[in-house]
């Protein structure tokens, strides 16, 4: 492994460590008593106190941090305050909605954006390019939750092609599950596709202006040979960067979209947990999301190293 990747791995771990501290600290300063919420309006003080003791809320801060970290390392994320099941289990159930959703959206946006971006770059300055770029401007400006509202109205209420929301679970079969994820994935993907296609277009245009493209043409390659054999791979680097960022964005974007479509995913889990101050769930989910961002960035670096031989070299 090259030193470059080694260093990235190290910084990944460091970032994660710092993130645990930040997450823990931020949630500690939240005022209030989770035990009270769990028991509800009419619970007696005794019952609340008993529960506090049971949850270990009376222990000092550092002890709790280290026991949290200790648990993390053993794969134990603690128990939810509001659901009486373990955070790991909750996340384990929900990730099977959010992850496929984010991947579906990412695939969708890539499948749409890259060809569109390349087409526009190839037709740079012509009417079709201008039209595509104008459309992408709209795509970027549309809030995805608003777009989601329109999609539901059209496809679920008027046309009744797909359910308006909810998730039947993968055990109900691939097809119903995919149908339930279709609208959310489109709502998430389209604005992203707009951004990605712009990036793809400008990356390609930039590469096409490089000297080595002229060299290739001087060798007798046709325009399209140059495009396929020389330009594309070079243009991939910024596209991959943005895709990496988008994956993180899509995972987080599910917070709002999952609420619109009442999907039982991580986004809604964390949103509910935040509003209900269910600290273990918030901590666990936020850490997971942060870890996935950091990990995605690392994967992006691996892809770089795969694309770009200059990064493969070990330090000399």
């Amino acid at each position: 492994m090259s030193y470059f990747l080694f260093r990235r791995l190290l910084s990944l771990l460091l970032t994660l460590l710092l993130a645990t501290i930040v997450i823990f600290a931020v949630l500690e300063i939240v005022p209030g008593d989770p035990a009270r919420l769990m028991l509800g309006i009419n619970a007696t003080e005794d019952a609340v106190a008993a529960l506090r003791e049971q949850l270990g809320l009376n222990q000092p801060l550092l002890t709790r941090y280290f026991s949290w970290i200790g648990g993390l390392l053993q794969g134990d994320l603690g128990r939810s305050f509001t659901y009486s099941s373990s955070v790991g289990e909750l996340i384990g159930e929900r990730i099977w909605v959010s992850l496929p959703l984010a991947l579906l959206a990412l695939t969708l946006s890539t499948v749409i954006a890259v060809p569109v971006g390349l087409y526009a770059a190839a037709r740079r300055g012509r009417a079709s390019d201008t039209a595509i770029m104008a459309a992408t401007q709209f795509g970027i400006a549309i809030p995805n939750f608003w777009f989601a509202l329109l999609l539901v109205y059209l496809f679920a209420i008027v046309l009744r092609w797909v359910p308006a929301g909810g998730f039947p679970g993968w055990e109900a079969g691939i097809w119903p599950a995919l149908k339930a994820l279709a609208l959310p994935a489109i709502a998430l993907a389209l604005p992203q596709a707009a951004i990605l296609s712009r990036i793809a277009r400008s990356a390609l245009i930039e590469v096409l202006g490089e000297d080595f493209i002229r060299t290739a043409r001087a060798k007798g390659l046709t325009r399209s040979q140059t495009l396929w054999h020389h330009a594309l791979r070079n243009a991939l680097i910024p596209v991959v960067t943005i895709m990496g960022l988008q994956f993180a964005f899509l995972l987080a974007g599910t917070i709002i979209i999952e609420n619109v479509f009442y999907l039982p995913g991580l986004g809604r889990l964390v949103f509910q947990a935040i509003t209900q101050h269910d600290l273990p769930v918030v901590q666990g989910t936020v850490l997971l999301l942060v870890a996935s961002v950091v990990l995605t960035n690392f994967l992006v670096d691996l892809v770089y190293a795969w694309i770009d031989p200059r990064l493969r070299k070990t330090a000399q």
Partner: protein
Amino acid sequence: MTGQRSDTGERLPEAGSEPVGLARRLLASRAFLIGAIITLVILAMALISFLWTPYDVTKLVIANRLKPPSPSHLFGTDHFGRDIFSMIMVGSRNSIAVALVAVGIGMAIGVPLGAWAAAKRGIADDILMRTNDLIFAFPSILSAVMITAIFGPGAINAIIAIGIFNIPVFARLTRGGALSLWTREFVLAARVSGKGAARISIEHILPNITNLLIVQGTIQFSLGILAEAALSYVGLGAQPPMPSWGRMLFEAQTMMAIAPHMAIFPGLAIILTVLGLNLMGDGLRDALDPRLRETK
């Protein structure tokens, strides 16, 4: 050779930032003109709303509720009988203010930090960049939701939540721009004249990255408007009776079937504003960066 990923958008101003040529190029840019006109209209709407709106948006006339668009209510009325056009006017104030202040916070803190890191390099730089990485590792919507949910919903907290994520953006941009300027010969010349890092940053570095900052500023501004809308949409942004576009959408969503106009108009307002700002930003970038204009 260890490679480093270059931050996107780190283009340095070269020739062609002279005021006269710039104005001419801006006026020749269709994107900029359309964007600027849209933005000006929205701004004018926000300003006029301080003096006049067709109807009072704090007064609820329940009997008048859910009226479809008509000459007396251009965009119809909402479930409390308020005039949606007036609410969009007043709401623009909120969107613009929140986004603007958030970007302002980001610039006011991020730019000096970035300039400082580029001038000092070494440890200061490392700490800044690691902190940036850390902040970037938290998906911004998630953190904004956390911040506003924990400290209570409201415009001020929304500003802070959005502002925090603007800091690393500007810090990174400034640092990137400044780093490459620090190797330029005119900076060397200033150093040979005995000028210190702070003075050089102010006299030579910052003026030469204002273009970058302005372009990024418009982009962040439009992102701020979207972020504010998203926060308000989940009920964490501006609070009633202050109308806000995101809240209007939130309220409209259950009424799509009976009053789609409640969702359509605020949505269009957001789209138009963001579109205007983005077009303006694009136009500015093209005009400020001559390299992008060259066609091959």
